[in-house]
């Protein structure tokens, strides 16, 4: 009976990052052959993104203190590969209950599933700043990918701005790699970090790493400013970024010359497929954003749909590995298959520690919601459609649009190619501030297909 179930229960995992890989590994150990779909050409996700073939840098150079974890993940995947149905370069662009719609090299196929495990990861979370549409502005994650996956710096003189552990990590990686870092500008003040120390102590190793990064930057004489308020990315339309202007913690204006800005405020989950599957979302107070609603083991509100990793709750790569294992065990249990209770307990306990830590991170490096209210009317909120904060505010005041999807319909914020990934959350903060309500009351942008732009050349069968 159990064997029959293993052979016929179709499990599809979306995402070959740490969560997806550990999930697949756990399922294979239990006798399954899951389908693993990933949009990228190579496995690893973002933090453990693999450099292209032919690149020679060592794991230590690429991943620093995480080198061992990265190597283990990649080697695990390489061993796993012949035991799973791995489909790289494949975008899951839509779904209906029990069927995923995929496209690869312009060909559309459907993939039937009995269980769908979403390990779709995250993107950077952005708060607009006046001038951020200028060429030379990148996300922090983008700056890191440039270095890790292509061995380039995003500019000749780079300013890193925003908040969160990634800010210091990428800045120090740039310094180590020989790039010129003009400044590190952190919106969160020292006081918050001190207040968050008890929670951050949940993972003393990580806390220590963070302090080491800061020390590295000081040693390299990189100016680091805490508690800044971003004012403007300076530059010309055609030539792009020429500098950054901020207000320092003591109220002075600081201008830093640069030709590239790496900007980011931690992460936001990629939830479009979950949205299309009808999964419920819940508002996470600590980080001030909507997450996928999952139970402690990764079950969503839709039967047969599971999730793990940053695509459901932002807890980082280590948590993603644990969550990936745990969600696989949850699926096994749901199928009444034998499961090692000790293993489940181990993963759950590891995740509990990470839950505490991430609350500390959220406290130490908060999402700068107040910046939305402070955005000048001329500042662009939606980079794709070039819609300003003023235009968005006018839809609230003149057209009564106090809800994100409504404001989108009137203002076009979120109607561009990025489908709201980089503007919708900040847009919600602008709307909430203009309407005078808490941000969770203005809702969230409804996910629609296609998950990423779909070429009009897409065909169902080979031409």
């Amino acid at each position, binding site marked *: 009976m159990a064997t029959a179930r293993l052979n016929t229960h179709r499990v599809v995992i979306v995402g070959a990052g740490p969560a997806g890989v550990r999930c697949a590994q756990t399922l294979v150990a239990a006798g399954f052959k899951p389908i693993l779909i990933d949009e990228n050409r190579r496995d690893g996700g973002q933090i453990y993104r693999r450099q292209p073939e032919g690149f020679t840098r060592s794991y230590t150079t690429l991943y620093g203190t995480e080198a061992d974890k990265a190597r283990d993940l990649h080697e695990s995947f390489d061993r796993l590969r012949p035991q799973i149905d791995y489909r790289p370069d494949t975008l899951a662009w839509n779904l209906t209950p029990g069927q995923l719609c995929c496209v690869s090299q312009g060909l559309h196929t459907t993939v039937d599933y009995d269980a769908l495990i979403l390990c779709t990861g995250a993107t950077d979370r952005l708060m607009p700043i006046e001038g951020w549409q200028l*060429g030379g502005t990148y996300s922090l994650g*983008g700056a890191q990918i440039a270095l890790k996956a292509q061995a380039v*710096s995003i500019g000749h003189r780079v300013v890193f701005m925003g908040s969160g552990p990634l800010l210091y990590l990428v800045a120090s990686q740039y310094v180590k790699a020989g790039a010129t870092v003009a400044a590190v500008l952190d919106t969160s003040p020292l006081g918050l970090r001190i207040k968050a120390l008890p929670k951050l102590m949940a993972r003393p190793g990580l806390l220590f790493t963070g302090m080491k990064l800061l020390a590295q930057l000081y040693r390299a004489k990189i100016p680091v400013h805490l508690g800044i308020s971003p004012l403007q990315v300076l530059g010309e339309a055609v030539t792009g970024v020429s500098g950054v202007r901020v207000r320092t913690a003591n109220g002075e204006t600081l201008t830093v010359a640069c030709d590239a800005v790496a900007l980011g405020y931690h992460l936001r989950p990629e939830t479009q497929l979950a949205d299309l599957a009808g999964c419920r979302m819940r508002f996470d107070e600590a980080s001030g954003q909507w997450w996928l609603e999952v139970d402690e083991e990764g079950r969503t509100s839709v039967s047969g749909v599971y999730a793990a990793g940053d695509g459901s709750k932002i807890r980082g790569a280590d948590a993603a590995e644990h969550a990936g294992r745990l969600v696989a065990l949850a699926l096994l249990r749901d199928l009444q298959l034998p499961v090692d209770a000790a293993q489940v307990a181990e993963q759950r306990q590891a995740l509990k520690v990470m839950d505490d830590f991430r609350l500390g991170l959220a406290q130490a490096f908060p999402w700068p919601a107040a910046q939305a209210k402070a955005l000048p009317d001329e500042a662009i909120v939606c980079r794709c459609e070039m819609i300003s904060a003023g235009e968005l505010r006018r839809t609230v005041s003149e057209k009564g649009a106090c809800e994100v999807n409504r404001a989108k319909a009137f203002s076009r914020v979120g109607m561009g190619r990025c489908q709201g990934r980089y503007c919708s959350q900040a847009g919600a903060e602008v709307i909430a501030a203009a309407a005078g309500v808490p941000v969770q009351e203005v809702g969230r942008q409804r996910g629609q297909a296609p998950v990423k732009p779909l070429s009009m050349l897409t065909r169902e069968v080979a031409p």
Partner: protein
Amino acid sequence: MNARFVRLAEQGRPIVKLTVDGVPIEALQGDTLMVALLTHGPALRQSEFDPGSRAGFCLMGACQDCWVWTRSGERLRACSNEVREGLDIITQQPEAIWPLRG
């Protein structure tokens, strides 16, 4: 030339030749189109709704800022496509190719 991106390492790779706006350039095998273009110039394309140009943003296929065109009108996302020998890239949206063909 005003290149935007700066190579820091991995320079010993085979050369791949392509054309950008009619100008031949040399990239390295394994470069994305974005890196190939931005190690030779400041931008990838013109913005639609402002007078500026765009040079990508997220490098992970999420922001959709880095789409470029081939001379035959094909659309390519520069951050997630590797360079290929002989690619003919343009950074200005081609005139809408509407007249009936064949």
